[in-house]
């Protein structure tokens, strides 16, 4: 236990004394959350950009309806060729002419956003009676989950993944390269003790920084966790241990920081995109969805969202917890087995 503590204390001192790195670990996810909150919350950026060909005020009804819609952003253009060129290069989603009805509009038929803009425009041009003849709107009864509330668990998952994998991967590889591990090998310290100290120390740092991040973001953005904060903390800890353990496999034998960087990028980027951190993969091919389910980060993100957005209990996440625990055990066994002190 004394050996474990010795390495644990030394690693913690390294973390918090490296002010630049420690500060960045907190600041980076914080900045992302704030940035996205500004862009996507009320009053933020509107997704569809429409050019209105006129240098005069907008006065047609349909144009007023389009421009007042929360999804459209209307930009006046006097040069038609310039607007069409931007439409062609996907900088605009639709161009509308400021003429009496029937007015003209242009879209880029190869642009999904252009096609969606056209759909919204068509809907706006139909009367409510016409619409109700064909469609019946059913609103969901539960309280809606705001985008930032959906995004936040993903962002903390992503931050945790980068911090776990790069933090543990790089430090072990660097210590192997500069001989610190070789020096430790000539002591009674076992690989298991060393790796446990690394995991717990990194875990402590990640949990501490994410608690600060959570408090800061909930205070600034005013969102709430629908589930228990204790359950959120426990589940986050389980998920973090699992991802750190994955980092041990990468660090187990890698000889250079360059190779570690490549391997870590190869793992982190697909995992980030497939774990629904940024967007849903509901429409992806089944094999991709199946593959995503193998990744620990998918389960972490999913579980965090269930606790924060849906108020899930830890027992509701028993399958995620079981899977993450099995992965942790597997990664730890493989990592310890492969681990080499020296190059």
């Amino acid at each position, binding site marked *: 236990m*004394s*050996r474990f*503590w*010795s*390495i644990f*204390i*030394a*690693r913690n*001192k*390294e973390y918090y*004394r*490296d002010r630049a790195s420690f500060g960045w670990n907190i600041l980076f996810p914080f900045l992302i959350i704030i940035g996205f909150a500004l862009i996507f919350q009320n009053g933020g950026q509107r997704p569809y950009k429409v050019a209105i060909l006129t240098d005069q005020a907008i006065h047609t009804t349909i144009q007023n309806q389009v421009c007042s819609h929360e999804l459209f952003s209307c930009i006046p253009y006097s040069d038609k060729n310039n607007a069409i060129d931007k439409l062609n290069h996907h900088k605009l989603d639709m161009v509308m002419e400021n003429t009496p009805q029937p007015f003209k509009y242009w879209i880029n038929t190869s642009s999904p956003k252009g096609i969606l803009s056209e759909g919204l425009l068509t809907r706006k041009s139909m009367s409510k009676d016409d619409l109700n003849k064909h469609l019946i709107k059913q609103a969901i009864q539960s309280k809606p989950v705001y985008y930032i509330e959906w995004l936040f668990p993903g962002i903390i998952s992503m931050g945790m993944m980068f911090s776990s994998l790069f933090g543990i991967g790089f430090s072990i590889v660097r*210590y192997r390269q*500069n*001989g*610190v591990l*070789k*020096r*430790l*090998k*000539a*002591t*009674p*310290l076992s690989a298991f003790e060393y790796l446990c100290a690394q995991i717990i120390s990194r875990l402590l740092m990640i949990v501490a920084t994410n608690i600060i991040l959570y408090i800061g973001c909930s205070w600034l953005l005013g969102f709430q966790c629908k589930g228990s904060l204790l359950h959120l903390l426990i589940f986050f800890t389980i998920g973090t241990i699992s991802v750190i353990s994955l980092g041990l496999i990468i660090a187990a034998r890698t000889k250079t920081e360059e190779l570690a960087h490549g391997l870590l990028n190869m793992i982190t980027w697909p995992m980030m995109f497939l774990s629904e951190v940024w967007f849903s993969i509901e429409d992806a091919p089944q094999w991709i969805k199946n593959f995503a389910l193998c990744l620990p980060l998918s389960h972490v993100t999913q579980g965090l969202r269930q606790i924060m957005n849906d108020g899930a209990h830890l027992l509701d996440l028993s399958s995620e917890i079981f899977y993450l625990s099995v992965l942790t055990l597997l990664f730890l066994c493989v990592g310890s087995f492969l681990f080499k*002190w*020296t190059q």
Partner: protein
Amino acid sequence: MSVKNLVKNYGKIRAVDNISFSIEPGICFGLLGPNGAGKTSTIEIIEGITQPTSGEIFYNNAPRNRTFWERIGVQFQSTELFSFLTVRESLQTFMRLYRNQTSLDRLIQICSLEDIQHQDNRKISGGQKQRLMLAIALANNPDLIFLDEPTTGLDPQSRRHLWEIVEAIKRKGKTIVLTTHYMEEAQVLCDEIIIVDKGKIIAQGAPEDLISRKYAGQVIRLPQENISEHVRKILDSNQQFSWHLDSTRKFILIQSQTINDCIEMLMNNQVDLSRLAIRPHNLEDLFLQLTGKALRH
């Protein structure tokens, strides 16, 4: 401690070629050899850092077990320490890895680290760092201490300071295994040496015994330019003399059992003796003769 039939291959290269030796307790044992001779491979196998291809290592007449690492102290040629820790904290970190710990303040005093104990371990000089690494090697009050080229890269003052610390450790009855390519260091510190070349032991014994067994007489040193080709041929033809260039290649070292005859021959051949120096044979002469014959021409 004893090593039996130790072999280490790196691919097709045999770094350690079936060597055996034993180390008596309480002595300073030197492992000498040119670069790439197999010294570090041998010492790292004994320390348990590298696995041997074959061979056996015994400590206290038994194969090494986990307690071996509780009993030894190691100073490597060049290793780093945990970043952002002071000298004192670095020592504490390593001390806590052992059951048997020495007094931290005493250790700091022995290795003259008092003035730098609160400095970041990355911001100390080369000599200070080697003293810190030596202090770490002593953190568990070990019976057996491995010092792998501890003074490489140090200035003469720092080197002599480290020798004094090693001498003090020796006086406490500790066993030291030292690798070095500084022959003066080995001659000052070691009670017994082995000289290794191409993975094999080529000489073994106490330094003075090895020197006296190999040489009788003295060494005459003269600037190379003072010795003409004619004189070199005379030296070559006379079995009483042998010569080689020193490591700087600026001086000729003539070994002679009959020093008067040698000086007479040089005077007869009008050799300028104004910069002549005479000294006894040392370990470097022996080392060069055994391993560095290429220097002669």
